[in-house]
């Protein structure tokens, strides 16, 4: 888009992206609200249920996302210096880390489903209300988060294409910067999900 003077309003686009992230804060916020209420009501159950989580995988996943954030931040610096191959490579690494995160998540979910812990399962329902809620929240929150990671990977793939095609270049980084903002946000959501689901034992 352009402003009345015909220039591209990079600051305006960035503002728009931040506003979108604010809406996402409230979207995930609704889930965090439910978590906080149910945790208050069923503190002991949550404590017990969290023991089922694989803390190694959770920690590894956190490290992966933190590193992926570094990569995409560096990719923006790179394209600002005109290094489009290095920038694209860093974006690729970001995607790979995102996919790795999702793969680990998949295995975590499968492990639980194999022992009969999934929404509305007889096993889960027998574990009592608090634990049922814990795992319900676990699937919903990590599921929606994972969906956001997936979308992010797809978007970054498009950014790679634009970087190679030079639509994104040292003078025109808004799209990549905004993609970075989105990715960092997804990282921050996980920074909170991690202690809430893995560390409250």
């Amino acid at each position, binding site marked *: 888009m352009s402003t009345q003077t015909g220039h591209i309003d990079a*600051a305006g686009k960035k503002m728009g992206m931040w506003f979108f992230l604010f809406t996402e804060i409230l979207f995930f916020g609704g889930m965090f*609200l439910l978590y906080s209420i149910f945790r208050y009501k069923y503190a002991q159950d949550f404590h017990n249920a969290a023991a089922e989580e694989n803390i190694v995988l959770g*920690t590894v996943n956190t490290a992966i996302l*933190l590193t992926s954030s*570094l990569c995409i*931040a560096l990719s923006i*610096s790179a394209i600002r210096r005109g290094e489009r191959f290095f920038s694209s490579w860093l974006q690729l690494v970001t995607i790979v880390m995102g996919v790795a995160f999702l793969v680990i998540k998949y295995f975590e979910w499968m492990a639980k489903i194999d022992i009969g812990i999934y929404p509305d399962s007889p096993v889960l329902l027998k574990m009592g209300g608090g634990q049922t809620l814990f795992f319900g929240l676990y699937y919903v929150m990590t599921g929606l988060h994972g969906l956001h990671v997936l979308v992010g990977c797809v978007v970054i793939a498009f950014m790679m294409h634009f970087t190679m095609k030079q639509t994104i270049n040292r003078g025109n980084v808004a799209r990549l910067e905004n993609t970075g903002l989105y990715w960092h946000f997804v990282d921050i959501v996980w*920074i909170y999900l*991690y202690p809430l689901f893995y*560390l409250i034992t």
Partner: protein
Amino acid sequence: MKDSSGETRIIATRAYVAVWLVLLVLLAATLAVARLQLLARYSVLGSLLIATVKAGLVLAFFMHLKYEGRFLKGLLLLTLSALGLFIGLTFADVWYR
């Protein structure tokens, strides 16, 4: 149009990597606090506070919020306050039932 940070700023790779290392250290810290029950009853609170520091670092440096204007920071605060209000007033119900 220059953005509020003055868009010519490029953050040094060194700085990004330093932030990343701090984040990993904090990750280890939060794990330690929780697993070793370092803060006893307040372990969960401690973990969440460390998480907030991590989030703050990502916001400030990776997302450049440190270099943005007061206005954007204010709006972020507004957003978080709205969420806080929602959670808080809901607790006014649940807590006192």
